[in-house]
């Protein structure tokens, strides 16, 4: 499976270079509307056709990849780190602290955070730059997306805290923070990788749906989420298969992340 991992890393690198060099590779601006050819099929001028406003889809995919490929993994990393810290610490320490933290986590999972997001939109100025809006959106998603993983991490940390090698480490004189940092956190990787891998597409899709609150990417800046929204229509399942390119790209990137990260598991 080494070849698969290498292939995944190479593919990720190619996609990253392509989207970072979007100004070079894109045949048109992502915002320019070719109003004479809306919803056009692929052609020499428009490799992936055009969208409903006549914007070149290939250009929008390139620029949208740049936004989502940078921000979604960052948000996923943030939520994973928060889950690791909160769940890991609670599970390791145990006792009343664990019970309190897990109760708070359960509460966190149940609250209607939609209203916090609406409130954040209300507090932001209307003329905020699209890039700022999308960064705030992903940051919020990162801050709100840790709770489910934290529970699983906590259970994992609890098991680890009672395992033999940790007992040995304690007997060797290792204290709380050192034990946590050197022995517990590294062994939480399995759950954290899962959390990270799941969060990327979930955050991308959530970002698209947050458009309904005025958050997310503002026009004309594209993102994978906004491109995937084209699929949310019955009409897209008829005669326009090129609309599926962003979906295929997202699946490819998510799979590449999985292959690139999960090296130990393929030795099973």
């Amino acid at each position, binding site marked *: 499976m080494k070849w698969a991992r290498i292939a995944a890393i190479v593919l990720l690198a190619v996609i990253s270079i392509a989207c970072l060099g979007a100004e070079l590779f894109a045949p048109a601006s992502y915002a320019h*509307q070719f109003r004479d050819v809306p919803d056009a099929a692929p052609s020499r001028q428009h490799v992936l056709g055009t969208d409903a406003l006549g914007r070149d889809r290939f250009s929008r995919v390139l620029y949208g990849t740049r936004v989502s490929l940078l921000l979604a993994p960052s948000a996923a990393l943030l939520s994973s780190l928060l889950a690791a810290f909160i769940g890991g610490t609670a599970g390791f320490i145990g006792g009343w602290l664990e019970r309190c933290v897990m109760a708070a986590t359960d509460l966190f999972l149940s609250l209607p955070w939609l209203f916090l997001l609406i409130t954040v939109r209300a507090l932001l100025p209307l003329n905020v730059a699209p890039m700022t809006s999308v960064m705030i959106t992903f940051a919020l998603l990162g801050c709100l997306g840790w709770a489910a993983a934290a529970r699983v991490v906590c259970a994992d940390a609890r098991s680890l805290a009672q395992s033999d090698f940790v007992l040995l480490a304690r007997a060797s004189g290792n204290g709380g923070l050192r034990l946590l940092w050197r022995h517990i956190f590294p062994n939480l990787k399995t759950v954290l990788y899962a959390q990270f891998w799941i969060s990327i597409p979930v955050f991308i899709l959530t970002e698209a749906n947050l458009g309904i609150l*005025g958050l997310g990417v503002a026009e004309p800046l594209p993102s994978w989420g906004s491109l995937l929204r084209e699929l949310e229509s019955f009409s897209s399942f008829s005669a326009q298969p090129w609309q599926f390119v962003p979906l295929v790209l997202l699946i490819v990137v998510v799979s590449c992340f999985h292959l690139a990260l999960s090296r130990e598991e393929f030795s099973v």
Partner: protein
Amino acid sequence: MRRHLIGLVLSVAIILCAATAIAQSGGQLRFCLHSEPKTMNPVLTADDSSETVRYLTGGVLVRLNRLTQQLEPELATSWRVGAGGKTISFKLRSGVHFSDGTPFSAEDVAYTVLQLMDPGMHSPTGDSFRSGEGKTLMQVTGKDQVLITFPAPVVGLDKLFDQVAIMSAKSPQKEMAVLGPYYVAENKAGSYLLLKRNPNYWKRDASGRQLPYVDSVRLDIQENRDIEMLRLTRGEIDFINALDAEYFDKLAAQAPGMAYDAGVSLDAEQMWFNQVANSRLPAYKKAWFTSVNFRRAISGSINREDLARVVFRGHARPAVSWVSPANKFWFNTKLQPHPFDQKAALQTLAQDGFRLESGKLKDRDGHLVEFSVITNAGNKYRERMATMMQQDLAGIGIRLNVVTLDFPSLIERITRTFDYEACLLGLMNNDLDPNSQMNVWLSSSETHQWNPSEKTPATAWEAEIDKLMRAQASTLDMNKRKQAIDRVQEIVWQEEPFIYLVNKNAMAAVSSALHNAHPVVLRPQVYWNVEQLTLDTEVAKKR
């Protein structure tokens, strides 16, 4: 022998007619509501879904024929408007009963009007009648005669009764006892409503058969338009009352006979700037938005033809003013849509000291011209219009930020906090008479969107509009009213408090299994003649 032959032929003919008649009856009509009806009380109806139920179940005194746009007698056989529009008397049809058997009489009309005009009810329909302070008086002058006197003249008084479903004063079922073709038999919350034929419905067809032809109507609650469309193509529902442009084209390609475009509707899409004096906008932006040159320039920089062609796939046309061209009598034919001319727009802006510098527009104090437009999220046509306007305005160096908001947040901004710069919304117009938009044009009104509840008109032209709207509401002379409304349209066209963008077409989809449907521009577009609709025999049998 000959006699026998004639008899045989006649019998066959009668049997055939009877068979046809039987085939034209029965079955279940199915279509979708996009939300759950909020109320079954016809007096309190405000949302679309409740209005649908009211139309299908409510019996009215007079009915506006949506095809001919003429008023026709219903529960009233005749009526007379008098005292300059202050009074209306009805002669009622006799021998009519509510769905539960309770007899219908003038008392029920009096009861309904009293409910409607009760200030505590805050009925939108009732407020349409309220042209002045004072009590509405009812006089029952016989079992079948009623005289209603309003405190002030009401323009288009008789037509307004098309919206008034008569309720029973005596029935224990209260508003559930109805006089319309159907009654509500079942209401499964969030799922569907089942309406069954009113066994006591008074209307009959030319051959004397009791209407409606279809036995029942099932209204499925379906918010998702894609799924609604899919269900139509599968034959699970019989029509879509209001079809979007995108779906129209798809359907027209698949099944051309099913897609109907009745032409331009009464609805408009419009944008306006926040001109509220005490809003939190910086002073320089307030100066921009209150400048007629600025508004005209923005209007002239928007390519309405492209909006109609690209966003609405050609199923719309550039709008002119607040009265749609579909409203043939009231539309001011001297006015034309503002042409797309960015050069002229820049010249207009130059009059106010705006100038282009390195492709960016600045005002006389050097502020970059940038503003946001809010619109309701989830409406892809408005989102696309806003995005197209973004490119158009970039052509004159203006940066437009498109912000989509959930509807309650948007409503709060435009009606309470006034924390917005520009807004893109649509106006749904159900009434041909422009007097129904009185509260949009009166400067003191809460729904005078760009600057609500003005204590005194902020500008001379708003004062003139106030005067003209009040004048047209106080006379029944149609020529005088037409002159006043024409002048209001002209003022609005010049001053552009609303920048009218497009008038959408009224489109519908009707299954081939449904007969006698004639989609029109006025709502309800397809089922306006629901009692005349029939289903194919096979479809009727299956349901």
